[in-house]
């Protein structure tokens, strides 16, 4: 019988697990004992009693900060103007970041495949954001395909996965924020899942071992995520879809 992991026991203690753990605890004495010990240890850890604050504590806090607070002005006031300039600055920074990501992505693409992307005038007119999102999804798709076929015994094959995941993480977070801002929950949800996989890939302690790869593939359902990204990719207008991803997939399949 396969025993429960420490993580499963802790999750169960905090009520974040499936019913199968409860069932296992009913039939496995060893796990039940381990769970009871965990319960005793955690049960003994109480929240420290915060020292009492006087009833006027809130007033004291207000007194200590009130002089540092400039008044907001009704629409168009200094804070709003400052906010507007911040937003303009932020937008300019985003454009620079997007351009940087686009160039980096392009370079990576050229490095990974001899096939050169081609474009036409209509594609050039596409909104930059969509191009970046499409590019990001392409790169993520390639990463997941490589993960799917990764040979964990070869450090040379596995190391670039962690590097690429680290490279993709910031862009993924920006895309996820944009998805939330434009209120696209399905895109945000997929990018959220992707974020977890990228974070795990980038930060796997001790590098990517065979067991770590298998765990990622099963626990994080990377095949399912790959499918979702492909579905999403069809929603984003094509940018230079020259069959790079497809040809790499075919390369692995063959």
């Amino acid at each position, binding site marked *: 019988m396969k025993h429960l992991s420490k993580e499963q026991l802790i999750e169960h203690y905090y009520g974040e697990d499936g019913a199968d753990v409860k069932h296992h605890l009913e039939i496995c004495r060893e796990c039940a004992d381990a769970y009871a010990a965990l319960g005793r240890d955690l049960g*003994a850890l109480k*929240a420290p009693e915060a020292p009492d604050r006087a009833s006027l504590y*809130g*007033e004291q*806090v207000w007194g200590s900060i009130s002089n540092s*607070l*400039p008044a907001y002005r*009704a629409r168009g006031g200094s804070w709003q103007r400052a906010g507007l300039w911040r937003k303009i600055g932020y937008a300019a920074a985003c454009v620079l970041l997007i351009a940087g990501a686009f160039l980096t992505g392009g370079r990576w693409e050229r490095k990974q495949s001899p096939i050169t992307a081609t474009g036409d005038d209509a594609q050039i007119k596409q909104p930059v954001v969509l191009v970046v999102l499409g590019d990001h999804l392409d790169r993520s798709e390639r990463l997941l395909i490589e993960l799917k076929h990764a040979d964990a015994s070869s450090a040379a094959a596995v190391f670039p996965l962690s590097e690429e995941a680290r490279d993709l993480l910031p862009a993924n977070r920006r895309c996820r924020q944009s998805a939330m801002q434009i209120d696209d929950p399905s895109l945000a949800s997929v990018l959220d899942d992707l974020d977890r996989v990228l*974070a795990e890939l980038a930060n796997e302690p001790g590098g990517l071992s065979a067991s770590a790869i298998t765990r990622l593939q099963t626990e994080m359902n990377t095949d399912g995520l790959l499918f979702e990204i492909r579905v999403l990719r069809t929603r984003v207008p094509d940018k230079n879809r020259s069959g790079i991803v497809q040809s790499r997939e075919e390369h692995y399949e063959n």
Partner: protein
Amino acid sequence: MWQMAENDHAVVQAILSGDRDAYRTLVVRHSQSLFRLAFRITGNEADAEEVVQEAFLHGYQKLDSFQSRSSFGTWIYRIAVRCALDRMDQRKMGVAGGVAEEIDAQRESAHTADQSAGPERLLLSREIGSMQEAAMHSLTPIERTAFVLRHMENLTTGEIGSALGVAPNAAKQAVFRAVQKLRRRLADLRENP
């Protein structure tokens, strides 16, 4: 609670329309709960007070980005979590030092939970409290914060991730690591008090 949240939204609108002093209502209303949270995370009275002030300052500065989808209480709570985490990071790096000597004395007084209990029980309570605090010191700031939010504040993994600005899985891993370390440390302390 719902009515209070409704009132909070009205107060926020008043502040954004130029009524700076309306913020006082929110500060008075939420200071006590933020202090309890900050104390649990930092384990230190002076730091907790600093965190409360910083949280309200940051809250005011970002008030125009507050969206009415969540309650002001939840929003300022998250800001306080981040401030507490920053505070502990600073302390770890030695930037916000200078209060370390006071910490033990404060903790001592903080754990005298029930003054009406008998002397033996009081002694036992103090002993357990100091062991717990010693064990908590073995955690990194993010592990400690994640553990406090999970174990003492009863937040879900998703909520912890959101409060800490990390993915839910990272929050879950932080809680796991914290629990494992605490159990090991407590076992050591029981064997070698």
